[in-house]
């Protein structure tokens, strides 16, 4: 439902857009952005938590006591062990195990990987698609512009979740039901990417329209720079800050969308669970006293989304000069 997270107008003068390689560090330190960052303890915490999650995901194999995706490593005899600090806890299962004898902590770490991969790739894909279409629409104009924007209009009212379900279904019907876990990941990225591109396209198109009339573009055209170069080198950097805001918020939304799809049965398979799949499975144990199977993945997901959202909020406020 990202559709209505209305981005701020694109005329925000973006600080630090053209940071050159040398001296970027001083620029960052001296920037308004960094100043505002340091002022907010909440933002620092959110950034640290987000960073921690990414690190945990990257180094999951080093921290985990088992690979929860490898059935040979799961022992049914170890199923449903409560967390370590409770009376029946057992080492090495810090947060307990689930029905299949999967270590909950390892499952969270590996699930985090899947969720983040889906989220990051989904956002990257939708960003690339949106930026490309936005640039084309804005720069070329005319019929192409109105076609792209019409599609965008329609899609903006069409909820992401339905689009994702649709894409999921189309891909499944094309490739048959035989989809392994890895290709399922691809499908999710595709589905999420296709549902979130509109905001980027609109934002970029808006900036392109503003920039197009400026003198430096005319100058660039005059010296014979090809259109793609002008767009990528000169127009695009000026739209980076709103895009960054959208991307951050969309990352959170993409991860939630994946979890929701998983609840509706179109997410990652049980043998290779994402955080969302873990919560869906754990859901079944909410009444049965095995709270740890759902509580920890749920907590991890909420903490992750919350920190990303906080970062996004701060970015939006910080990059919006009107709010300073």
């Amino acid at each position, binding site marked *: 439902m990202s559709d209505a997270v209305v981005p701020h107008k694109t005329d925000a003068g973006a600080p630090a857009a053209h940071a050159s390689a040398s001296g970027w560090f001083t620029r960052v330190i001296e920037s308004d952005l960094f100043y505002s960052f340091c002022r907010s303890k909440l933002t620092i915490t959110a950034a640290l938590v987000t960073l921690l999650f990414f690190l945990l995901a990257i180094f999951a194999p080093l921290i985990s006591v088992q690979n929860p995706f490898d059935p040979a490593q799961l022992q*049914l*005899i170890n199923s449903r062990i409560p967390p370590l600090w409770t009376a029946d806890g057992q080492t090495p299962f810090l947060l307990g195990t689930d029905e299949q004898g999967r270590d909950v902590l390892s499952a969270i770490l590996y699930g985090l990987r899947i969720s983040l991969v889906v989220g990051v790739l989904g956002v990257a894909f939708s960003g690339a698609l949106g930026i490309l279409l936005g640039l084309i629409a804005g720069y070329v104009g005319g019929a192409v512009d109105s076609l792209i924007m019409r599609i965008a209009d329609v899609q903006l009212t069409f909820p992401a979740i339905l689009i994702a379900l649709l894409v999921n279904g189309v891909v499944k019907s094309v490739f048959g039901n035989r989809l392994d876990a890895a290709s399922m990941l691809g499908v999710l990225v595709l589905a999420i990417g296709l549902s979130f591109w509109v905001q980027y396209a609109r934002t970029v198109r808006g900036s392109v329209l503003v920039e197009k009339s400026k003198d430096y573009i005319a100058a660039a055209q005059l010296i014979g720079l090809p259109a793609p170069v002008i767009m990528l080198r000169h127009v695009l950097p000026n739209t980076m800050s709103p895009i960054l805001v959208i991307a951050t918020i969309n990352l959170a939304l993409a991860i939630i969308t994946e979890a929701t799809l998983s609840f509706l049965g179109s997410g990652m398979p049980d043998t290779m669970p994402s955080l969302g799949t873990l919560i869906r499975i754990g859901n079944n144990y909410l*009444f*049965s006293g095995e709270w740890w199977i759902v509580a920890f993945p749920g907590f991890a997901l909420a903490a992750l989304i919350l920190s990303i959202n906080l970062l996004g909020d701060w970015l939006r406020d910080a990059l919006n000069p009107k709010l300073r």
Partner: protein
Amino acid sequence: MSVRQNLLAAIVAAMVAVAASPASSQVLRYANQGELKSLDPYTLKETTTIAHHAHVYEGLVGRDKDLKIVPALAESWETLDPTHWRFHLRKGVKFHNGDPFTADDVLFSADRVRANGSNFLSNVPGDAKFVKVDDYTVDVMLSAPNPILISQWDGWYIMDKKWSEEHDSIAPTPASATTPSYAALHENGTGPFIIESHQPGVKTVFKVNPNWWGKPEHNLKEIIFTPIASDATRVAALLSGEVDVIEPVPIQDIQRVNASGVATVMNGPELRTIFLGMDQARDELLYSNVKGKNPFKDIRVREAFYKAIDVDLIKNRVMRGLSTPSALMIAPQLFALSKDFTRPKADIDGAKKLMAEAGYADGFEVTMDCPNDRYVNDAAICQAVVGMLARIGVKVDLLAQPKAQYFGKVLKPGGYKTSFYLLGWTPASQDSHNVLHDILGCRDDPKDPTRGEANLAGYCNKELDALADKILVESDTAKRDQMIKQAFEIAIKDWAYIPLHQQALSWGVSKKVKLTQRADNQVLLYWATKQEE
């Protein structure tokens, strides 16, 4: 004194009156995972639907609390000779609209249940000819002896000829029709309850039938049925007292329900057998890294798979004790000599050795097909199987899907597209012949095209088929049981299938309600009593 006596007499009289008419005054609310889709009793052969219909419709015969066949609309029957049966119908029975029940209705129903669009074709043999002798006597002529003729007739409900004709419902609702069938939305049975209102997939209200011919064994005036698909919500509704009976209770929630103080879970073994099958028909498996040959054709591989799987561990961990490991492809309640069979214990080392002997010391890869919304904890069982097979080096790629996709892929119309799968089976006739014929029978029998239709593994042994044919016509029970035993022994010797267990019934019942649980998992509320509120 006389006043007092009068008063006493009045009280006694009142008490007697209360006791005599077990005041049908209670409303029972019931929630099931599945919904009641059509009221037409011939359109969907599925346990929950059949059980719902049983409240309003009745067959010639019924089954009692122990699944024994008992008279219903037929008061009695006899076999004049092995191919000639005679049924004496109950007199004075009226349909809910007041039409009298006669032999014409039986003949009509026999045609209708075998007409296009019926899902109950196999319940009544196609070669059986129904002949009206008089208004209350019907003869059935067969082309060959069939001792289990009436074994599926408890699910064949009798409909009103006149009513069906009046409402243009002579045939079971054709699925392609553009207008709804009247019979899909309305009922006119003879049973103990009348459907007062029916919103498909939302709510169905049953009212007691005051004119029912039988003696009610319940104290209800009304049953309100609501489907609740979500497990958590269904359990919550029971715990909060919003409903009185739910089916099923997910096994992980059983303890919670029992500890709640407001409801308990009724458990019992179900007749359905859950088993694993291995494609032994193809020369090369569809989904495996072994090319040019089919490892499952090697009996040692099948034995190794069998021995690698620890059903007791599945029972204890995945099923939380609520399953009965099975040595046979049929539930012990349905076959008298089941106790002669014991299931070999899991033996990882033995399995590894067998794999090595067969030339698969390093195992191989195979894809497993599994439903994830059909049987109790089906996907979890499959995951456990994957883990167990990993220990003998077999890498199983699990494809767990909703039943719609799963059945579409693995069943005959989908081309048996599977290499290794999990399936559950309840013999509709409650008889071993069904298992021997449908699951263990050879596919592609030119004489009998329906043989082996559910034999997704393509197991084939002509000796077993020959026995199955003899079993069908044998009417001496003891002799028949011996032959069945012999047939099952053949299948076991061939390691044809890997039976896992019979899953447990799991009904959540409010403490205010007393209920009878039947092993076929039909929730029959005409045996329910509810405490006064």
